[in-house]
Every structure is written in C-alpha cells, then in structure tokens.
C-alpha cells in the first residue's frame, strides 16, 4: 500500500496521461489531473465528467485536453486538494485549513471535510 502510494504520488499534477487541466486563480495557474482518479474521491468531479454533455467537455476537439477554469480558489489550496485526491492523505497546514474545508465541502469530498 505504501509502495502504491509512492507510485501514485508521481501522478499529482503530472502532464503524463492527464486528461484534464485546471486553470486556477486569477493567474490561471495550470494544474493537470486525471478524470478517473478525481471522480473516485470527489462526487462533484464524478458528476462533471460522467456525461460528456457539458460545455467543458463537449466543445473539445478530438484529443484536446479538457480545460476547466476555477477562478475562485487559491492555487496553493487547490494543489492540496489535488494531492489529497491522489493519496488520500491530507497535508494540512493551519493557514489553509478553512479554505480547504470550503473546497472539500463544495467538491463533496466528505473525508477531507472531516479531517479539517
């Protein structure tokens, strides 16, 4: 399990095989993600990726990566959420705990919410 965790850690914000990119915050910082893994942890992501009907996905040309804008979140906090989705182990610092809680709530990541 630990080995597995170490292996999957390498995929956090890794462009390899990524099928979604998030443009986060005012600076539109790019974060790469994998739909399948995100859907496992977050109900919201699951809903978003489940049908291919939405604007984010359906307007894609073939092979083009899905782009999702998230203007209202601090990139630092987003990265914490992202790595939680992959490793299920939260790295929480006190300065971001409330922001993290808010996102966990919005994105329907129950466990992370509880940890906060």
């Amino acid at each position, binding site marked *: 399990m630990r080995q597995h965790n170490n292996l999957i850690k390498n995929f956090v914000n890794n462009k390899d095989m990524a099928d979604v990119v998030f443009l986060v915050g005012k600076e539109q910082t790019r974060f790469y993600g994998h739909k399948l893994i995100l859907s496992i942890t977050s109900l919201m992501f699951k*809903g*978003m990726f*489940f049908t291919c009907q939405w*604007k984010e996905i359906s307007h894609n040309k073939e092979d083009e990566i899905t782009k999702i804008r998230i203007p209202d979140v601090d990139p630092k906090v987003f990265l914490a959420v992202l790595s939680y989705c992959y490793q299920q182990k939260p790295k929480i*610092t*006190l300065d971001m705990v*409330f922001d993290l809680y808010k996102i966990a709530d*919005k994105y*329907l990541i129950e466990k992370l919410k509880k940890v906060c």
Partner: protein
Amino acid sequence: MSWENISIPVKILKPPKELEKPQVDRLWGLIRDAVEEIHQMNASSLSFEEIYWTCYSLVIGGKGDLLYERLIQIIGQHATKQADMISKISDEYFLVILNAKWQQFKLQHLMMQDIFMYLDQFYAKKKQKSPVFQLSMQQWREKVLLQENIKDRLLKMLLGLIHMERNSEVIDRVLMKSLIQMYLEVSNKELDFYTTEFEEKFLLTSARFYHVESQDFISSNTCGTYLKKVSLRLKEESFRVAHYLSKSTGPKLLKACEDENLKEHAKTLLSMESGCLEMIKRNKSDDLKLFYELFTRIEGGQDSIIEVLVDFVKAQGESVVKEETIKEKDPSDLISNVIGLRDRCEILLKKSFGNSPVLAKSINDACVYFINLNDRLPEYLCSYLDRKLRMAFKGMSEEETNLAMVRVLQIVRFLKNKDVFKKFYEHFLAKRLLSGRAISEELERLMISKIKQACGQQFTSKMEGMFLDMKLSNETIDGFKNYLSTSGSLEKLPSVDVNVRVLTQGFWPTLPAQKALLGEVLNSYCNIFTEYYLSAHNGRKLLWQYNIGTAEIQAQIGSRKYILVMSTYQLLALLLFNSTEKLSFKTILQSTQIPAYDLMRALQAMSLGKIKILKKSSRGKEINDDDIFTINRKFRSKLRRVKILAVLKSETEPERNRTREKIDEDRRLLIDAAIVRTMKARKVLMHNDLIIEVTKQLNSRFTPKTSLIKMRIENLIDRDYLERFENERRKYKYKA
C-alpha cells in the same frame, strides 16, 4: 507554522450570509435558464462548473428550500408538456415515441442529478426529502404515465404485444424491455408502480389466456402431447421474463401458468386414458419424466403421482405374489416376477423420477407391502437361490451374477420375517453342502457376504459355521485315512472310501438322528472313525445322521458294470439284495430299520423314477407292506455313472413343516429373551409398553404377533420370571 496567523480563520468561519433577494433572483435565473437548455437538449452550451457553483451558492446562502420547490415546478411543467405531446400520437407510433421521449427525459434528469448534487447532499438529505432524480421520476410517473390518454393505452398495447407473441408473432423485444423497465424505474420503495400498474394486470391476462388455451388443448390431445405443450409454454414464459420482464415477476408468472395449465387439470391428467397411470403401465418413461417434472412444480403434485404409483405397485405386486401363479410347484417364476416388478420400479425411479428420495421411499413401502403378503415368499426366495446356486448361476457373467444376487437381496431387505428366510437358507445351504455334489464355494461365500451386508453379522454366523465344518471335516478325513492305513485295521475289511462330515450341532438345521442298521462293514468303519475322532477330540459326542448320507457303489447288472450314486438309505436297502433275490417291503424295513417314510421314498426313487434298479410287484406309485422288490436285470443306461438322488431333489412336505416348526420355536425363544431382557432392565412395566418394546427389539428379524407375545408373557409368569400386580392386572413386575 506561526500562531500570529490565527486571525485569518476567524474571519472565514463566520456562517455564510443569507442571500439578498436580487442576488437570489439572479442566481435562480441562471438555474432556470440552464434547466431549460437541458430540456432543449442544449447542455453543451452550459458549463458544469458554473451551474454547480450557482446551485452551491444558493444552498449555502440558505435558499435550498426555494431552489428545491422551484425545481419540482419546472420539472413538472416539462413532464406535462411531454405528456400532452405524447398523448396526441397515433397508436402506430405511440410506443416508439413514448419510449424515445422517456429515454430523453431520463438522460436529462441524470444530468440534472449531477449539477444539483450539492442540493441532494446538503439540502434534500438533511430535510429527508427525495433526491432530485427521484423527483424527476415521480413527475414522469404522475404527469405522463398516469395521464388519462396514456395510462390505459400504454398498458393495453403492451399486453397486446405479449398476446401476439404468445400467438407466435415476432415483436420488438427491445422496445418492450425499455418500456417495461420504465415502470420499474419510476417505482420506488414506497410506491411499487411496476407491480400495481403493470404486473398485476399482466398476470391476470396471462392466467386468462392459459385458462382458455388449456381447456381447449386438453380436450383434443393426449396427456403426453398436452404436457409437451405446457412444458414449451413454461419455457417461453421463462424466456419472456429474461427478455423483458422484471426478474421478480418470474415465479409469479410461472405459478399462474402452472396453476392454469396443471393444477386446474391435475385430476384429469392423472386419470385420463393416456394419463399418469397409463404411462406407468406402459413404461413410458420419457412421458412420465415430463409428467413428474411438471407435477413437482405444483402444490401436492408429487403426492398425487406417488399415490398413483403406489397403487399401481401394490396392485401389480398383489397379483404377482399370488400362490396361484406358481406352476408345478416351482416358485422360481414368482420370485422372478417379484424381482422384475422391483426392477421396473427401480428403472422408473431412475429414468423418470430423478431418483427422488421421497419416491424411492414410497416405492419401497409399496414393495414391503406386497412382498410380505405371501407368507411363503421367504422360503421361495431360498428355493430360488438354491436353484441358482446349484447351477452356479449358469450362463451368467460375473457381473450378471453379482447383479442377480443384489436383486434378490433387495427383496430380502423388504422381508418383515427375515428369520424365516434365514432358516430356509440355512436349510438349503446344508443340503447343498452335504449333497456331495460339486458346488461353487466362491459363489456360496459371495452370496453369504451379501446376506451379511444386508442383514448383519449375526444373521450369517451359522452359515459361516457350516463352511468351517466342511473345511475341518476335510482335514479330519485326511487324518482318518492316514490313520486307517497305518493302524492296520484295513486288512480285515473290504476297502471302502469313507467320507465323514462332522457337523457342529447348532450350526446346522437339526434333523432327528435316526437309527438304521448299517451292516457289518459300514458299521466297522463308523466305529473306527468314532474311535479316531474321539481320541483327538475328547469329550465330544458323535451322532450319526444316516439319512443325509450318500454313497457310490459299483454294481453289475446284467452284463454291464455301473457306478450307482445314491443315498445311504438306498444303499442299505440295495445291499440286502446281495444275498437274496426277492424281498418284501416289510422285510427290508425290518432288516434296515430305516424309518418307513424315508425308506418308502428311497425305494420309490429306485423303482418308479427314470432309473429303475428295482422291480416292484404291484403297480402304481404307492408302496404297500407286502410289495415284493427284485433287482431289475433288464436295467440299461447309456451312462456308466448313474445318479439316483431323487429324494434330495425337492423339498419334501415334512421337511418344510419341520423347518416351519423350528422357526416357531426359535421365535418363542427370542420373544422370551426379549421379554426377560426388557423386564430385567425396567423392573416394572405396563402391558402395552412391554408389547411395544418387545416388538421394537425383534422387528429386524420378524414381526411378532401380539397374541404370541401375550402367550409368552403368560408362560413366563407360570415359570416365575414375572408376576402381575395384584391391584393392577395389566402391570408386570420382574422377579429376580
């Protein structure tokens, strides 16, 4: 981490502010537009992120109520619009369009379920309201499926299609599946829409359909054809369930079909001319198999088959074991028929009734019934086996022999009075062993081992004892011959090849020891043997049984020499003719002192059978005291070795009665033992309890008659083993 930063969280922790009206209106406007787009199938113009965020904002802004209520409203409006449209469609396209619209509606509301996920999670769940998707299903159910122009039409058309399919027309099963699935999908725990609106009505139509069909079909077809059709129909219905109905409908549907097709007509099917009984009679195992398979599906079906089967086996058995079926005193046919019937049952059980343990038991019970109808059957069994064993199961392979034995033993297992079988078997075995003829020891031992398996070790102990005696006798006789040649006693006597069988009393069926005058030579041999045997086995007592001995002699009759094989009695009679020409029966009787009946049999065999060594003065079969016997000088035979063993060939009436008497005596002893054993253990017992206990103990050997047990109790009271209580006459006490 620095603790100075602690001021930041406090700011964020404040509960989110309730939204102001203008803001709510703006956000709701976004949602309403988005739902409209979805209903227009324009979702691709919408950003999931945005709508999700809008919904999220409304919920955390405390407007979950408002959002939820208004959503119900617009979904309802949409559903109503769909219903209006669908209801106007002509019958031809009605189902197709309805299905297309339904599929669309479902997809739209699956998407809505995703965007309103936050509402489901943090509003509906908390307030224990249905999630958004269930709301949608409810709206479809109420606004579309219950619409007056849709509800009955839909049901009628679906049932119509199924009716068509039952009449072998091809229908669109995919469409059926999708529409019937729709009933299921709009159902929920509280409201089983599928069952109430579809299934119940479908089951009713199905029952009505088969009610009509089965009445019609049974009146114009044989049972076999009818059942094949029913079986096919049941298969079709199972496929129907698999293709487009709910799994839960399966058992109900099949039950409805079975009730109409089978239960309704059960009586007819069992008793009709081509029905169950007829199938059994004609050994139609395939038809019967189908009959059984179908009937076990209905309540009480198996029992009714058992009833027919058991009645048949009993009736058939009764006619098979009737004494009248015995021709020329040969009971082999009777036994063959019993085995045949049992075999037939076995085959039916295997081929038609799937080796059902319940049916096997019923068949066995029926066999027990008819096999025990004829009191002499155990005896016939033994005589049947005797024939087979004497011929060493001629013409049968090892496997067939084995099977034949197993079959006989199946019958033995059914005997209530196994003790009768035992006695007669011992009786016949003794005869076979002592007849002096070659027997197959291997087969005899195999048979005994099988009896042992069926009836237990104790049952065969005497039989095994007999074999042991035979073996010991061989050793003894070898020793004796050695003794003769070394002791020199031979010189004084003419050489006779003496063979003595020493039989342990108790193992062998007792025959009354009868005296007879042996004549000088034989007497000397007997004396020498007695002397020899007692010197080796001190304290024993030898009783000679001349009546079952055999002899081989060389005789010259006319010009030819023959070897004659005969019984000892015959020999004794014949030896007299060495010195005299003519002898009357009376004289022979006096000179040999053989019991009159036995002597008569012996002389009959020599003077009336095929081989006439002696001539009798009078005609007819009877022998009178004054009849004169002479040697038949004209005797001729192609064979050099001539057997005159008629006496031993068939079971004689006195012998049979003797065996019967012996059985009765044994039973009395066994009952006595059982009574004493029981009373010794229990000390005090009521009459009825004692009877029950004794019967139970003896049941493996025979079924004791109550009257006999009563008699034995009386007898034991007379002999002071038991006594009655003075004040309670039906209570016994054991007297130590």
